[in-house]
């Protein structure tokens, strides 16, 4: 299982995550912040649990590039 989290409120809308992992992230046209696709929200944290391990590499790149360090990736 790959678990991706996004602490969305702190996003500054730089677009790096979308450039590096376009299958997981998209910029919201509404508030200009990143959206973690197919995720569920709990207390400001958006979480996506996926059994597709191929998303891991791109997601890690997005996590490392994020200037405000709000993306978390876990592999179980």
């Amino acid at each position, binding site marked *: 299982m790959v678990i991706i989290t996004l602490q969305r409120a702190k*996003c*500054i*809308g*730089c*677009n*790096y995550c979308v450039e590096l992992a376009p299958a997981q992230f998209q*910029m*919201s*046209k*509404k*508030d*200009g*912040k990143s959206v973690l696709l197919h995720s569920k929200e709990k207390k400001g944290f958006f979480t996506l649990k996926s059994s597709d391990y191929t998303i891991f590499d791109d997601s890690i790149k997005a996590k490392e*590039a*994020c*200037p*405000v360090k709000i993306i978390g990736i876990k592999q179980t």
Partner: protein
Amino acid sequence: MQKIELMAPAGNFESLQAALDNGADSIYFGVEQLNMRARASINFTLEDLQEISDRCKAKNVRTYLTLNTIIYDHDLSIVKTLLQKSKDADITAVIAMDQAVIASARAIGMEVHISTQINITNIETARFYAMFADTMVLSRELSLRQVKKITEQIEKENICGPSGKLLEIEIFGHGALCMAVSGKCYMSLHSYNSSANRGACKQNCRKKYTVIDQETGIEMELDNEYIMSPKDLCTIDFLDQIADAGVKVLKIEGRGRAPEYVAKVIKCYRDAIDSIEAGTYNKEKVISWMLELEKVYNRGFWSGYYLGQKLGEWSNGSGSHATQKKVYLGKGMHYYPKANIGEFKIEAYDISIGDTILITGPTTGAQEMEVKEMYVNDVKGEKATKGDSCTIPLEFRIRPSDKLYKIVKNTVEA
């Protein structure tokens, strides 16, 4: 001569109130992520706009929304929302850099001010932006002689903004300066992916560096290792020359700084501007203001580029040279309005008669005072320590969310 407008930074409600209490003519602030302090401070949200506007209008203080990062396509919608909501809340103007923001603001008839990020350094650029903006800040790297030439030309040619009034020139008066030309820097972006131009500067220029020749491996000897960290700008000692240069607005940097910083700096500059107006500006006053300014966060002071002096006054430390610092003591518990007494719970260190204390809060702002009398656990006392309840006569109201600090001497780290 028109009196200089004093513009204060408001990173949060504490600083906003401190600016209002100490005589700012206008304040600037950021909402959500699209401003130059997207990372550094806790920004206001859309819901705060009305309160910002109301609090400032009650004191006849103008309000400027900073919306001055570079803008991508995905930002366009939030830009429009921010502008419309600001206009609805009767915010005075928007400080803009990107043409998209300028165009969107003009489309809804909102007043535009040009951000430092545009780096205006000549009269033709000023004339160009006068098509859209009523006020513009000049590049921080100009000398006052160059500033004066621009303001004289504006007057001579009667260059007006969209409001029909003469274009107003603003300059930076006090606070952090950086290596880059008026903030246009890519160092943080290239080293940490964290773009200064999206408000996420990591300030890695403030660290120590050595310079090594790649070919020979020889390390250059440097007098000061903080080769990219300039001292902070301070203009209070030549503010008369700034007024003489035709500057109409003096901007104080520091949305990322503490409320007591805003209070202290605004109070000094308020006094200085009023003194110039009254013809009582003199050296003795300058000395006393400088002593006050040194008490709060600073990297040492220099006059920037305005006086055309030698370049590069580098800071000799990574942190502050402030002569004072605050120590957290506790929090506000209750205020007795009839007796004008505030009750605090002491959670750390101690407080004694004669101490200078600082009380900060979103509505209280930043109030500094000396303790002349106090009650400890309902008994008249000299000193209260951790765990005690302490009541102090106050000339202002406090709230339960307020924080109590003690101001102590700071041993300067080099």
